[in-house]
């Protein structure tokens, strides 16, 4: 099904030699393993998707995926969506032409009789760097787009050492329903029924389930939704009262959430499949909510009103060692909400009010430095892409509250297509080729 014609190690090594080393190698893959290539942050090599014949839809999806990865300067040649006739180059690639256009990479997508072959060329060295042939499901198949996104992410990995973020999906809330949409804004579909208030969707680490809160008459249970089957079960222990802000632990077997009672709101952790949950905070008329795990599962950042206004705190996953996380000046700094730990563990995104207007901030875990990411309009409830540089958040910069995506490295942003008013986005990890499909609404 999937074969690498050239070993990627060799090709990556060649690329590494061809490119100057960055001052600091921040290239990582999931699991904390460093790979032997450096990618220059902020530098975006030119990339051309070579026009060809057939598979226009694949070419268009890949081209947009690579553009949305914000790691390439996309160079347009002809009409990439119209690949018939003379546009397809006969014979070997004209490296000179692409070099003259400023490309460092040229990507061929070739219709290979039921398969699609992707060939990435290193234009500067006039060689093919990588090649892969994949069998795609038919374009009418629900898994087609995701399969193309997986190919896009692989191309991004060939060129930069890090896979892209195309093969991901986002959950969000609109009109009380939880929706799921592809990372490129396509194929939005509602998961939860109309007429209810469903809130706070959270992905399981394997992308096969989500947790959410269902509000009914001012009370709320935490529910687990299995993508694909659409099966919904209630988390044991959340049948009564108000239970909000569920978040999976990285092991996928535990779920932290906040439970409100007459003494305030506290964070609990439940072991899935077992009754009973462990209380991690002791509110005493304060609120503790919005837990988010560090990727190693050892710590939990959360929001607490223990000192007055809501601010960011952190504790060990067993509830010990609770301390302030994001520094603030009492009576000066605005309240802070909605933390989410980054996939690489180095930072935590959250929003904080600046002169009464919420803005997205990133807190560096080591050294607790703060960086403000947004400034235009009201910006809230950010969630990390698996590459740890893109963030999706809610912004009213164009009027309605919509979902936007920003590349924290370049500052480039785009609106994630969604009709109407949207909130509380949650970005999945990379979804496997064995696609996760939701039933038609």
């Amino acid at each position, binding site marked *: 099904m999937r074969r690498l014609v050239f070993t990627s190690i060799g090709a990556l090594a060649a690329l590494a030699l061809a490119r100057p080393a960055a001052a600091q190698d921040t290239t990582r893959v999931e699991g904390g393993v460093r790979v032997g290539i450096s990618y220059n942050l902020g530098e975006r090599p030119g990339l051309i998707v070579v026009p060809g014949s057939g598979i226009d839809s694949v070419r268009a999806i890949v081209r947009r995926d690579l553009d949305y990865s914000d790691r390439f300067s996309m160079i347009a040649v002809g009409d990439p969506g119209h690949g018939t006739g003379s546009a397809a180059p006969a014979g070997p690639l004209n490296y000179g032409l692409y070099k003259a256009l400023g490309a460092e990479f040229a990507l061929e997508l070739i219709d290979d009789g039921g398969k699609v072959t992707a060939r990435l060329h290193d234009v500067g060295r006039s060689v093919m760097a990588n090649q892969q042939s994949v069998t795609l499901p038919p374009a009418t198949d629900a898994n087609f787009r995701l399969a193309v996104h997986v190919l896009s992410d692989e191309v991004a990995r060939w060129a930069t050492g890090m896979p892209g973020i195309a093969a991901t999906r986002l959950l969000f809330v609109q009109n009380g329903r939880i929706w799921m949409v592809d990372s490129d804004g396509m194929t939005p579909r509602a998961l939860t029924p109309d007429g209810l208030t469903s809130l706070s969707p959270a992905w399981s680490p394997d992308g096969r389930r989500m947790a959410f809160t269902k509000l009914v008459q*001012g009370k709320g249970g935490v529910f687990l939704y299995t993508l694909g089957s659409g099966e919904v079960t209630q988390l044991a222990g959340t049948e009564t009262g*108000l239970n909000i802000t569920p978040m999976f632990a990285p092991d996928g077997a535990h779920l932290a959430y906040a439970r409100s*009672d*007459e003494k305030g709101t506290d964070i609990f952790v439940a072991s899935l499949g077992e009754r009973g949950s462990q209380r991690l905070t002791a509110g005493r008329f304060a609120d503790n909510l919005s837990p988010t795990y560090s990727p190693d599962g050892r710590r939990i950042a959360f929001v607490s009103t223990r000192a007055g206004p809501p601010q960011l705190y952190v504790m060990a996953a067993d509830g010990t060692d609770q301390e302030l996380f994001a520094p603030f000046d009492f009576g000066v700094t605005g309240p802070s909400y909605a933390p989410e730990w980054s996939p690489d563990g180095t930072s935590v995104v959250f929003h904080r009010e600046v002169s009464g207007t919420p803005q997205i901030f990133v807190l560096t875990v080591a050294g607790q430095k703060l960086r403000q990411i947004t400034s235009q309009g009201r910006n809230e*409830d950010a969630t990390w892409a698996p590459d740890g540089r893109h963030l999706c958040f809610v912004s009213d910069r164009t009027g309605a509250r919509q979902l936007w995506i920003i590349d924290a490295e370049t500052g480039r942003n785009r609106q994630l297509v969604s009709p109407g008013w949207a909130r509380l986005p949650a970005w999945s990890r990379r979804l496997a080729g064995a696609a996760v499909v939701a039933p038609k609404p």
Partner: protein
Amino acid sequence: MRASSILSVLAAAALLAACGKKPAPEQPAPEPTPARQEAPPPPPPPANDDAERRARDAAEKAKALRDELADLIHFDFDKADIRTSDQGILDRKAAILAANSAVRLRVAGHCDERGSDEYNLALGNRRGAAAKRYLTGKGVDDGRIEVVSYGKERPLDPGHSEDAWAKNRRDEFEVTAGADKLAAPK
């Protein structure tokens, strides 16, 4: 005024109110009225006028009590402390609850649009709980008051002004049982 007579009038009023949704074709006391046999007043208008007046009067009093139970209280920004100026409203509810042991209340905390969606659910819960604590502190049984929170999901005023925010930071009180018979506190 004797409480018992008030009660019966109130009960009649409640019955009238119960069928008062649609203009139910003015059911004038049905023919089989075994209670008053010796005085058969064929012209119902005068007697009915009197009964209606009393019933209306009673209905108004019952409604006034229900309205008092439903009176909103309001909160300062990001606070769940009962305002001194709202204590009278809660004291009055506590008195009505004391006089009507069948009445149960649901307190729903609400917030303005500032702060995150999720935080406001917790804040609304604290606001509801604050009212409950105040009422139980006045002797109302714990089990008669339920606390819920809508956060900022149900604003009364959809505006974005200080005025709208002030209206939206509130507790709502809903009678969930015992609303049919309400006695005024002594």
